[in-house]
């Protein structure tokens, strides 16, 4: 078995090791700020009809101009965005109804909301290297400043579906920007098992536990289906992989893979040709795991999941591949214009 696939098999447990401790600590720190359950979002007007678009932060969002096309189509349904895609949405004139945040990283994630405390480029080169939002590759400070302004302007219109694991800096930033927060617990483990952390959290705060699927984009899909009960969910920017020609150094876990695998780090990347687009993308072990997880979750889901990303690696049973235009045309039958 390829090295990358073998590593991917260990990532369910590895993710628990990575995030459970800090996630629980954040749940405790965020506790005084919890005023609303995410279940209240189901009772809140969020667009019309039973169709929704989930916006991930994958490279196809820019390659396919997905957000410009979404705006031009006047989609009236619900728009749920991963936090990494918030900047792209607002720059394209798309104001999501809900933005989802889960990552407990204490410093990084607030950048997706514009970090008012950023006065100089940080030593952490994550944003200069990541493939999700290329606007951060150039002038970081200017990009950040513009994002601060946008989020401050539109924040009051956007609801945040905040995992209790979310970084306190993000929570503070969202509140500062006038965003209402609706809370949920990540499902960390089997809630029926003795000593379950998920059960402990639920006992602590009474909030539902959502099975996060490893990353915020998948968590956004889970929320859209399980909480908002949307029957037709279109995905954009959910690539779960890297575009052809992306240098390995520009992938998210490159430094870690080199440290762990040395000269063999290239063997960790898995190249796959999409049967319908014909493009060959590649994933690292994490993205490969995310993909396997999404397919497992979508296989039995009652909603219809349509991947309108027009790129990437998410295809298989339970996922329909279609163009964004066809999904939007189908959704337009019977819905009014979304402002």
């Amino acid at each position, binding site marked *: 078995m390829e090295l990358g696939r073998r*590593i991917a098999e*260990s*990532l*369910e*447990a*590895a*993710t*628990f*090791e*990575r*995030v*459970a401790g800090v*996630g629980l600590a954040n749940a405790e720190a965020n506790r005084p700020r919890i005023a609303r359950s995410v*279940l209240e979002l189901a009772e809140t007007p969020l667009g019309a009809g039973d169709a929704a678009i989930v916006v991930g932060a994958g490279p196809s969002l820019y390659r396919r101009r997905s957000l410009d096309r979404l705006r031009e189509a006047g989609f009236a349904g619900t728009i749920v965005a991963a936090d990494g895609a918030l900047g792209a949405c607002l720059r394209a004139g798309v104001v999501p109804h809900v933005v989802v945040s*889960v*990552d407990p*990283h204490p410093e990084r994630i607030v950048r997706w909301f514009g970090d008012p405390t950023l006065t100089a480029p940080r030593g952490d080169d994550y944003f200069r290297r990541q493939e999700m939002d290329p606007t951060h590759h150039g002038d970081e400070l200017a990009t950040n400043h513009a994002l601060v302004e946008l989020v401050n302007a539109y924040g009051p219109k956007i609801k945040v579906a905040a*995992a209790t*694991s979310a970084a306190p800096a993000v929570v503070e930033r969202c509140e500062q920007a006038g965003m209402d927060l609706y809370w949920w617990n990540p*499902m*960390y*483990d*089997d809630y*029926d098992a003795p000593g379950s952390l*998920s*059960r402990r959290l*639920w*006992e602590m705060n*009474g909030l*539902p*536990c*959502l*099975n*996060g*699927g*490893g*990353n*915020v984009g998948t*968590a956004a899909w*889970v929320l859209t289906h*399980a*909480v908002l009960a949307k029957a037709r969910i279109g995905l954009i920017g959910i690539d779960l992989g890297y575009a052809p020609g992306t240098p390995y150094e520009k992938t998210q*876990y490159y430094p*870690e*893979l080199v*440290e*762990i695998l040395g000269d063999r780090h290239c063997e960790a990347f898995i190249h796959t040709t999409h049967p319908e687009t014909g493009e060959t993308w590649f994933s*690292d*072990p*994490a993205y490969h*795991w*995310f993909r396997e*997880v999404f397919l*497992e*979750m*979508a*296989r*039995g*889901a*009652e909603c219809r999941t349509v991947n309108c990303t027009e790129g990437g690696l998410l295809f298989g049973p339970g996922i329909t591949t279609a163009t964004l235009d066809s999904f939007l045309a189908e959704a337009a039958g019977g819905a009014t214009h979304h402002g």
Partner: protein
Amino acid sequence: MPEFLKGNYKVNAKIEDKADTTDSTDEFEKKALSRLGGSICFVSKKSLMWQGDGEKDKAKTDGAGTKNS
């Protein structure tokens, strides 16, 4: 390490038991893998959403998991 032979000097080097080596290798791998993990957990074979005891019938059982998970 069990002393099968009685010598007349002690070595300074620490003799690592194989079990110790396996434990430290596992530890290293665990630590290394955790740096590659996701930003939120996934629990295989469980439901998409769980709303606690007393509301088991409200658990969304589609997606991952069996009908009664």
